[in-house]
């Protein structure tokens, strides 16, 4: 495997979608290649940073309004 091909297999690797044989060749390449190892690490850190986009607090008025709607549903729906 060449670096140029290895970078295109990174998602399949992370998703566990490579065949056993390809996975083995991929891991062998990574073990011996500083560049591809660094690239994979960059991808992992990218994913870590992307996941932080979820950290956004619900605005107080929205929470109050939804809670009120939930309360109404609880007391009237059934």
């Amino acid at each position: 495997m060449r670096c140029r091909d290895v970078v295109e297999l990174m998602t399949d690797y992370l998703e566990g979608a490579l065949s056993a044989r390809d996975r083995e060749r991929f891991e062998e390449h990574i073990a011996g290649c500083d560049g591809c190892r660094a690239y994979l690490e960059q991808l992992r850190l990218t994913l870590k940073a992307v996941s932080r986009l979820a950290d956004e607090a619900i605005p107080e008025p929205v929470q109050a309004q939804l809670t009120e709607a939930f309360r109404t549903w609880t007391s009237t729906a059934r």
Partner: protein
Amino acid sequence: MGEGSELDALRRGDEAAFVDLIQRLHGPMLRLAMAYVADHHVAEDVVQEAWLTAIRSLDRFEGRSSFKTWISGIVINHARSRRRKESRFLTFTSLLRGDEADRRGPTVDPSRFGRDGAWRELPTTWQNIPEDRLIGAETLDRIRSAIQDLPPKHREVIVLRDVAQLDAAAVGDLLGISAENQRVRLHRARAAVRKSLEEYLA
């Protein structure tokens, strides 16, 4: 709290459980809405409408999917219909973008590799970048705009998988796409965001 007991708690009218849920899922659902409607206020609206729909439908939710998958589907429906209403504002370029979605081709600039297919210059390690820079406000802004710049079909996949943290099976069901198709889109989306971060962090 497990899925089943979460749903039971909601049906019992457990307000604390409800508040916990909307607090936990607000961020992911807001980003999801913004995969379809770019305006923050419109996205807030969409998420709120989705919760109101969810509350009204709680008795009908059968628990075949996870609660998060279910509410994600409701958010997507509301967001798509909002986008359709506002589609008269879409620019010509953004309409053209749809075709890019499943195009193949390298995700890393070919000039970074030599004729033998090996790196000319190795990617740098990010291991030494301090946490407060890697996930700092400016970096997150950069990521948000990188995601907004993606073709819509890539955007929805990366947000569902990497922001909302749904699993591949749930996302396949929600979007009605094959596992392979999802991986292609996810790969291109992640590679584009990585590239944008690489330029920013350099």
